[in-house]
């Protein structure tokens, strides 16, 4: 009879097919189970490891659920005021033009309070990468309406659903910045299935690599969920996202480099 394999036998270097990237710290994520933030953090960190640019990268955390992103990336990190990450990134990148600089922002941060900073950083063509996590809601403050909240969607400040007449329209920031001459690569991704995670990771890798070309700003929206804010189970939230968010925020590249 063949000998039983022990755990130690299995955990041999030769058998390792996947391990946590060194660019993430060992700190326990504070995100709700099922939330997309953790996955998005991971793929950004993996890209930085694959590109071997840990010592040349500065990340900017926003105000929102990912305010503590600096606890998870083993990178030099700068925590910005609500909405101001693109301005903070501009200051860093202008003074450290040879470093890789990215911001990580929610929809309230990027598309409401920080609209001016976002548009102008994009329009100036700052040579940075913006990762924009659109969960259609203000997660951190307890589920209020975001600029991206869909028509009819319930939030704690639109308890009967978003009424366009009263609260205005949901904002497609990504289509908007794609119009600006300063953006080089603009794409919309998701991370709710392994296939989409792989795609999103590829997009993020390009978006960071493009900083080497010095051709302008790369902008990656990730349409994500907020099961606690949406008051759904993680599985329900992902289904709801596919059925409601994706039709309004269609996935795919919106602006690709002409010079490839």
């Amino acid at each position: 009879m063949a000998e039983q394999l022990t755990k130690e036998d299995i955990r041999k270097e030769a058998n390792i097919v996947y391990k946590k990237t060194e660019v993430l710290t060992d700190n326990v994520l504070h995100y709700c189970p099922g939330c997309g933030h953790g996955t998005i953090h991971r793929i950004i960190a993996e890209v930085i490891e694959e590109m071997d640019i840990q010592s040349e990268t500065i990340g900017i955390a926003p105000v929102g659920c990912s305010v503590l992103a600096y606890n998870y990336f083993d990178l030099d990190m700068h925590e910005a005021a609500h909405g101001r990450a693109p301005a903070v990134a501009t200051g860093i990148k202008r003074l450290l033009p040879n470093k890789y600089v990215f911001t990580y922002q929610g929809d309230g941060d990027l598309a409401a309070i920080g609209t001016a900073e976002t548009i102008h950083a994009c329009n100036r063509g700052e040579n940075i990468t913006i990762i924009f996590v659109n969960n259609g809601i203000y997660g951190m403050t307890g589920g209020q309406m975001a600029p991206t909240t869909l028509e009819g969607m319930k939030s704690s400040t639109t308890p009967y659903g978003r009424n366009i007449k009263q609260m205005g329209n949901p904002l497609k920031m990504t289509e908007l910045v794609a119009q600006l001459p300063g953006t080089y690569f603009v794409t919309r991704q998701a991370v709710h299935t392994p296939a989409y995670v792989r795609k999103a990771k590829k997009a993020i890798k390009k978006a960071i690599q493009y900083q080497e070309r010095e051709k302008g700003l790369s902008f990656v929206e990730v349409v994500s969920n907020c099961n606690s804010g949406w008051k759904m189970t993680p599985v329900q939230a992902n289904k709801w996202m596919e059925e409601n968010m994706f039709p309004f925020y269609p996935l795919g590249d919106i602006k690709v480099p002409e010079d490839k």
Partner: protein
Amino acid sequence: MKRELRLMKGNEAVAEAAIRAGCDGYFGYPITPQSEVMEYITAEKPEERTGMVVLQAESEVASINMLYGGAGAGKKVMTSSSSPGISLMQEGISYIAGAELPCLIVNVVRGGPGLGTIQPSQADYFQSTKGGGHGDYKLITLAPASVQEMADHATLGFKLAFKYRNPVMIQSDGAIGQMMEKVELDEQEERLTDDQIKEQYPWATLGKTPDRERNIITSLELDPAKQEQINLKLQKKYREIEKNEVLSEEIECDDAEYLLVAFGTSSRICQKVVKMARDEGIKLGLLRPITLYPFPVKEVARLAGQVKGILSVEMNAGQMVEDIRLAVNGKIPVEYFGRFGGIIPSSTEVLEALKQKIIGG
């Protein structure tokens, strides 16, 4: 050190001195009466002169946050604005103070509230010296009274900012910003390289190298016990600043029986008042705070033991007078005289006020 003589506006002098102090980046947004600062810097082609970066931001909110980023990277960064723009920056200034980063902010003050006027004022004294934004923090506040001091305070401001890792405010006003005087300028100081920054400022976010832990620039600490410790550390630093960095000038104070206290433009008027009073046989002196924060508390207290009364002369509704009263602690009468809305008080009206409120009172 060899110094170069030039005839310049105050706004130009602060800009030129900042370039010479090895400033790495200027980020600003136009507003009267200080637009010459950025105009001067851009005309100087600092990218070619020293490699300094200059960028016109989309707002003062953006420019202060660009400073925040640049300061986090250990760079010498500055902005300039005037009152309404400085109000917009307050959130960012509070973050910079909370994260303990150095930077230089020039406020060429105009009259308020609101859009107010473009004429000179000192009405931002409270905003500069008491915090301005949210939370318990202090700005080191320098008050130049001449074009020469506009230049000197740029150099000094950067020095203090890095010594204490604290934002420094130059609180000037429209008169000092706009007037031309001769000014002696320091020689060009080399800008630091990234390697020098890494060595001198180990906290700077230049990229996490294997030889150190990651650097995090933040003002956030959610644990109250830790947040209290952060606040205590800040307060300790402010006490150090109060102990070490007070600057003031005393004019004709040795035998003074009465004292004027004034800074910036109003202190220039008061110099004339001292002369006029002495011509009439009134022994009047002038104390000119050069640092508004830290305030010259000891100097005021010492002179309060000597003179019979103090008049605070301000281009606002009476702000510094509160700090003088705290320092005097009720020992002698302290009164205020001022004009506001952009009006500079005349020497005759100051002398008249002294006679009515202090000498006759």
